[in-house]
């Protein structure tokens, strides 16, 4: 569950959907605001991840089987 979440967080930190968009809002180009908001979101989700059990499970600690993938086991919602 966390692996795809992280993948999306990394992939969309670059504002691809706003490619070529040149609107300015509140003094800065909109795609800069996207990025600022996105990194804020990352911090919230990272904090949730660190707090959840997935942090340890990703290392294969206190997990019954499979220690191959970071956070391969688990899949709980935060």
């Amino acid at each position: 569950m966390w692996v795809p979440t992280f993948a999306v967080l990394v992939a969309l930190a670059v504002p691809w959907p706003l490619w070529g968009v040149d609107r300015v809002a509140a003094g800065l180009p909109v795609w800069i605001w996207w990025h600022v908001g996105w990194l804020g979101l990352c911090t919230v989700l990272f904090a949730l991840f660190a707090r959840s059990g997935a942090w340890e499970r990703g290392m294969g600690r206190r997990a019954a089987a499979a220690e191959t993938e970071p956070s391969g086991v688990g899949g709980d919602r935060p």
Partner: protein
Amino acid sequence: MTVGLSLGVVVGYLVVALAVGLVAYRVSDATAEDYYLASRSIGTFVLLFTTFATLLSAFTFFGGPNLAYAAGPEWLIVMGTLDGVLFAVLWYVIGYKQWLIGARNGYVTLGEMLGDRFGSPGLRALVAGVSLLWLFPYVMLQQMGAGEALVGLTGGVVPYWGGAALITAFMILYVTVAGLRGVAWTDTLQGLFMLSVVWIAAAWVVSALGGVGAATEGMLAARPEFGGFGGGTYSPGFIVSTAITIAFGVTMFPQINQRFFVAKSAATLKRSFALWPVLVLLLFVPAFMLGAWAAGTPVEVPAGANVLPVVLAEYTPAWFAALVIAGAIAAMMSSSDSMLLSGSSYFTRDLYRPVVNADASARREAWIARVGVVGFATLAFVASLFRPGTLIEVGGTAFSGFALLALPVICALYWARTTRTGMVVGVAVPQAAYLTVVLSSVLPLVPPLPRTVLGGWDVALGLMALSGALTVVASLATAATADGDASRFAVAGD
């Protein structure tokens, strides 16, 4: 007069930073683990800022604004993505795992960890050698940055070599007397200081320009293409390959990688991990936007100078401009210190001791480490006088070189089937290939090989894929050696 004041502020600041380092040295023990790792006792706040400050280098303070000035503010996106998000994820994937393994087996360096796991002093020496090789351009980058900064600040009164020599002297002085505890404490001080002054500087310049909206309008009037995302230098290939190579490269930097061993507890790592994206953003937004906004101002940036000092000299009082530059130079100094310190531990523990003289006394080892630092910094200084590229180019080369280590290391950390041959092949072949590409552009012996292909895709990205593939294929094709011990990396047993 003004030049005297500026120089006074810069040198004064560096002296204060040195004094803090000396105090830290007084409270430390003299063991190797303390010298390099501050006895694995670094807390969240200090860990966060020391990692932060070592990432803060000429690359961020001068290279970043220069690029934003020349090509547009998209650099903010590239750096934010790679540093704020991708590096944070790797911080967990590589960093936490290394911390678990390191705390269990008492490792101090990456080479030591890998050498022990695979029972191979050769691999240990190879990893250390490769790391030192790419550390060289990055130390050089700091010297180039300091040289250019003082040219910009003093309007050319202080020559480029003078600035570069100044930082080299402080670097050597600092690292030979203080050790990591000193570096960690001054990093914190400097991280906080830089974060504050960059915001004050941005506020100052923006108010002089008539507000954020007016600054952006000015920028768009001068360079309309800055408003739209992408275009120009920033092709998708450039964005993706720069972000990936730098983020992976950063994790393999000796000073960053060694930070993965120093945390006091897992909670320290967790908190640092979560705060990372915001902290990074707080620094990058004002620093890079200042560079981009400068494009809309009538300020003339002389060739060979950095944008940031020139803009500050124009819009803020001389003492403040000097203070920002001093802070930046000090942060670069602590970056370099951390690098030199980690580099010297790689040199003595992974190269000198296993290969040259296994019975060297601790005293002799400490002496060798210091001589190594002085020699390394001096050579980098000499090389920096030739200015072989822009700050971003030199930095990018170093990052890419380190990035080629990352995938084999991840393989070793997570895949028990990885063999010694797999590691050696996966590290050595892509390194040799990349080194050929880099040298071909510096030395006139051969025609330069292309660094990027198909519109901005970096060849290093392809070589990274190659390093991962070679490690896996060679590991599958060979049997584990008797000396290897996969259980060294097992962390599941608690």
